[in-house]
């Protein structure tokens, strides 16, 4: 894991004290809310539906146990005993007091964390593959490159006031576990025929009110030009991105309106110019970072056998563990989606437990998934039963990764001031419905994603089944979408037709799964069947 050096720590500590002074002046009336709002947002402090909300950055979703314990302590000391893990691998606290905010940031700084650039029109937290460094299929650990970009983008003076927020994802495998092509810049580190590593750049993706899949603008940028190429992409956007209309200000609109070819031409022109300027960080700095992400010292004699005599344990192993690059190890997914629970929420006690288990079983590492679960990336197969037993006793042993119960849901109208409808109760009722009917297992991989408004924090466009909550004359209404994917088979879901009320949407989801069960062929997932047979059979079942 990356460890702060003296410069990182000094920057974060200075920012805490700067914010402490800003908050003090606001409380004393020396700053108006209009003056203070952009300052607090630069430090991740929103004013939400019930209170201030603090969004804490978890760079590329990687944590150690000390940091997870600190997050739990903050939940207990300053909030109401829980936190919410988000679809951008961050954590949010919903009940923060302004007078405590600087102390919280100080507590975070002690464990090399902060809330900088978790809001505002800047480059946000860099996200990555939650199995990075462990995945059997990656060509390299993408996190050092994400870290390099994090350092480059932190406080970057040219990119602190972009036309709109900017999100970057970095992966290094053919399987896309980070919704890479639905980011402003998606970077896939690849290996060419000569065995050299380079970065494929996908620019102009995103969800929100105008969902777009990022086109590839350069299939192979040498890794020693990674930052320079990013800078060229950002510079063209910063220069020509629209600032007159926030709904047309994201880079996806610029790339779409210019056309990918013309945008690429401008980026390449800028790139050629920047290469002469020498903006790329020194190679030694990259190597310094890479050394901090050395693979864990796994036991090469670790056994591969797993005692599957306990059927509940065997089911959890089948559903919630993923192949690791080291023999005798897996990555284990801790589901934050108990049936009827709130997706992504974890109590302080659960966070402490996950931290302890990471320390004991996973080389002191945890990852936050954009699907709002937690990963212990490096677990010996021989330790899985003990791990599962501890998780299950704490309500963290749900065997439902990538099933219809593993629902992404934004906070929705229960917490978010932008939302039009509640998301969480819909997720709760759907997971309860499928748990009752016992169909969760037979439906296989089925990614269901719910957003409470068009901003799409719940990634509804990318769900095999997506749900979008809307406000219809003051009443919650839910649109159903089918056929999306945020993985390597990326696609955008389409709306089935008229929306449903709260009861109706739960029934509608069950109806479309019934069509799938009737129509599927061997080995087909829900989304495969949808792509083969199209929308009509589903519409007929829904609307007659």
């Amino acid at each position, binding site marked *: 894991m990356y460890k702060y050096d003296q410069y990182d720590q000094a920057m974060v500590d200075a920012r805490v004290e700067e914010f402490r002074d800003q908050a003090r002046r606001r*409380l004393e009336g020396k700053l108006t809310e209009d003056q203070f709002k952009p300052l607090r947002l630069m430090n991740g402090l929103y*004013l939400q*539906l*019930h209170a201030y909300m603090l969004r804490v950055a978890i760079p590329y979703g990687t944590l150690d146990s000390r940091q997870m314990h600190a997050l739990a302590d903050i939940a207990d000391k300053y909030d109401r005993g829980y936190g919410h893990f988000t679809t951008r691998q961050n954590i949010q606290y919903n009940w923060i*007091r*302004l007078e405590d905010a600087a102390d919280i940031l100080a507590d975070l700084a002690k464990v090399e964390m902060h809330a900088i650039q978790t809001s505002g029109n800047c480059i946000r937290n860099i996200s990555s593959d939650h199995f990075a460094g462990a995945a059997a299929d990656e060509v390299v650990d993408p996190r050092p490159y994400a870290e390099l970009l994090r350092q480059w983008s932190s406080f970057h003076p040219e990119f602190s006031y972009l036309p709109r927020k900017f999100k970057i994802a970095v992966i290094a495998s053919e399987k896309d576990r980070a919704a890479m092509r639905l980011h402003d810049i998606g970077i896939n580190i690849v290996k060419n025929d000569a065995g050299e590593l380079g970065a494929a750049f996908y620019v102009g993706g995103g969800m929100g009110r105008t969902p777009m899949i990022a086109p590839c603008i350069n299939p192979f940028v040498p890794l020693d030009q990674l930052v320079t190429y990013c800078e060229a992409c950002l510079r063209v956007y910063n220069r020509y991105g629209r600032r007159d209309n926030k709904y047309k200000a994201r880079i996806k609109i610029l790339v779409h309106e210019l056309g990918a070819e013309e945008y690429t031409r401008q980026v390449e022109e800028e790139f050629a110019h920047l290469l002469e300027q020498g903006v790329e960080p020194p190679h030694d700095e990259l190597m310094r970072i890479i050394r901090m992400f050395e693979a864990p010292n796994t036991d090469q004699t670790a056994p591969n056998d797993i005692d599957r005599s306990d059927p509940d344990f065997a089911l959890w192993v089948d559903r919630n563990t993923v192949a690791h690059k080291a023999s005798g190890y897996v990555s284990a997914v801790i589901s934050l989606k108990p049936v009827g629970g709130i997706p992504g929420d974890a109590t302080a006690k659960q966070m402490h437990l996950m931290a302890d288990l990471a320390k004991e079983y996973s080389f002191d590492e945890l990852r936050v998934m954009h699907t709002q679960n937690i990963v212990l990336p490096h677990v010996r197969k021989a330790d899985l039963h003990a791990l599962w037993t501890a998780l299950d006793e704490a309500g963290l042993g749900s065997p439902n990764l990538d099933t219809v119960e593993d629902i992404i849901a934004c906070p929705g*109208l*229960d917490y978010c001031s932008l939302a039009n409808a509640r998301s969480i109760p819909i997720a*709760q009722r759907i997971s309860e419905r499928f748990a009752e009917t016992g169909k969760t297992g037979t439906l296989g991989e089925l990614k269901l994603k719910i957003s409470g408004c068009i901003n799409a924090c719940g990634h509804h466009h990318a769900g095999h089944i997506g749900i979008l909550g809307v406000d219809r004359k003051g009443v919650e209404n839910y649109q159903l979408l089918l056929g999306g994917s945020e993985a390597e088979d990326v696609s955008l879901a389409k709306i089935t037709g008229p929306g449903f009320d709260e009861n109706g949407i739960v029934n509608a989801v069950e109806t479309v799964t019934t069509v799938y069960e009737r129509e599927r062929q061997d080995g087909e997932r829900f989304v495969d069947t949808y792509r083969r047979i199209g929308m009509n059979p589903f519409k007929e079942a829904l609307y007659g």
Partner: protein
Amino acid sequence: MRLLTGNDLKTGAVTWWTGKDWSIHIEEAVDVSGNEDEIARREEAARRVNVPYAVDAEMHDGSPRPSHIKERVRALGPTVRPDLTLKPADPEIGNWVI
């Protein structure tokens, strides 16, 4: 009727204008029709409230109830965490919101 609402500056808690002061309990809110701008300006200047604004409401069982669901959720708390609402012991309170 119109209610004036905002957030407490220090805590961020949702508050409602009672005619004399601010309360977290919407039952104590009063109609401010016609006076909302003046009260909001005065109270915000005195830092007794943050970002105040007026919302439409109706009387419901003797108490004001905001017309829009968003304000009802604000007034009560998250419907998915009844233990964190202002009325954790009332099993029927969700009906007031929805």
